[in-house]
């Protein structure tokens, strides 16, 4: 029998809030699904949409992008800039027909260890239900003779 499908989830998180939050999840010994690969960047303002595209390109089935709640950015305004970028990015991904159920944006603070666990679980369940992102994977390597 084939192995049940386990999605690969890539999470781009900021150093100061969500990463610390995820750390707290661990130190609080909260269990959550292990499908997520966490990539830490200094600030959500650093999360270029190309990183998201590259993750899909390299085989991610789902993406989490997460940082400090509005007003809480370590660098004052990185998350506000990021928010605008995501607003436009999300819309343009929709225009191009990318499945936005696979990309989740969130705010998780350093104190929200339980929330991080819940987010990862929810996203993992949802993406597992959706199955592999084969539509995207089909175009990787296509168009080469």
């Amino acid at each position, binding site marked *: 029998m084939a192995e049940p499908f386990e999605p690969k989830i890539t999470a781009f998180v900021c150093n100061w809030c969500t990463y610390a939050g995820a750390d707290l999840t661990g130190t609080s010994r909260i269990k959550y699904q292990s499908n997520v690969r966490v990539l830490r960047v200094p600030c959500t303002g650093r999360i270029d949409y190309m990183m998201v595209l590259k993750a899909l390109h*390299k085989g991610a089935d789902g993406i989490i992008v997460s940082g400090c709640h509005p007003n809480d950015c370590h660098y004052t305004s990185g998350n506000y800039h990021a928010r605008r970028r995501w607003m436009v990015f999300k819309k343009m991904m929709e225009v191009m027909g990318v499945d936005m159920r696979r990309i989740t944006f969130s705010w998780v603070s350093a104190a929200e260890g339980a929330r991080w666990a819940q987010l990862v679980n929810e996203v993992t369940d949802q993406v597992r239900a959706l199955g592999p992102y084969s539509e995207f994977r089909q175009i990787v390597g296509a*168009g*080469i*003779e």
Partner: protein
Amino acid sequence: MANTYQLSRESLTSLFGALRKDGRRILAPVESDGRIGLGEVEAPAQVAGDYLQTIMSAKEVAFPKVERLLSYTITPGQVDLKDAEPKAAPTVLFGVRPCEAKAFGALDAVFNWDYRDKFFNARLEKLAVIGLSCTKADEACFCTSVGGGPADTAGSDILLTPVADGYLAEVLTEKGTAILNLASDLFKPGNGVDKVAVAAKVEAAFDQPALTAKLPGMFDSEVWVDQSLRCIGCGACAFVCPTCVCFDIQEEADPKQGERLRCWDSCGFHMFTLHASGHNPREVQSARWRQRIYHKFSYYPQRYDQLGCVGCGKCTRACPVDMNLKEHLTEAAGVTA
């Protein structure tokens, strides 16, 4: 000497059938959303009805826009290299114009110059060309100024010329004869139609040998600067051109695996000659535009004894800013050095 036959319009269906039965795919101009491009067809009815040319050239059949040359995987202490084998399906190119058929010769000159390119040759060997003479032309065409013509046979294995109730079929090569032998009953004895009378009339616009002779002396002419002021340095002209051969080698790799790709490139791009030092010997667009002309009309004849242009006019039609090659060559030919 070509063997000339008559082929009725209806018999094309049987010919297509025979070609496919022989395991060949047929590529022909097809229309989709008002655009004419090459596509695979099964029957003559699928071929575009009334076209002058495809937007893109047929070169991609032998020289695709992106192709894999090799791939590899990396494990600790080891690299496993795999040569790519060209996917070369037996193919018949049906209904391309004489200019494009001839263009394979210009590609061949480069891909088999000092090195025999395995990828290009594998595809070319499996390719047979059934050309179709032109009965009309447009303002961009200038085949007759560069040694070709609307019913020219160069490059075709079989050349069809439309006549009243079918085609005049000239079987020109061994590959052509092989096709004839697949359905020899369809090819009726020819009746001596004057194909020049039915073919489009394309006036020669300039004296190409004279232009080629004077180009070395007009490298610094202002004419290139004037003409190219509106050129925006894209790759459209080179990419649609049936004779442009330039390519770039791209490595797409991560720490575990990679592949080496060959991709079309264009001398119109400012990056084309950019050195790693930052120096660019063709710093301005006029130098790039001049390169395009010189490569086709001066360097090609010097090196390969043929032109790097067949006068199809695709570049002119594709150019977003209407750089009309025929017009600009005519102008250059008229410059008193």
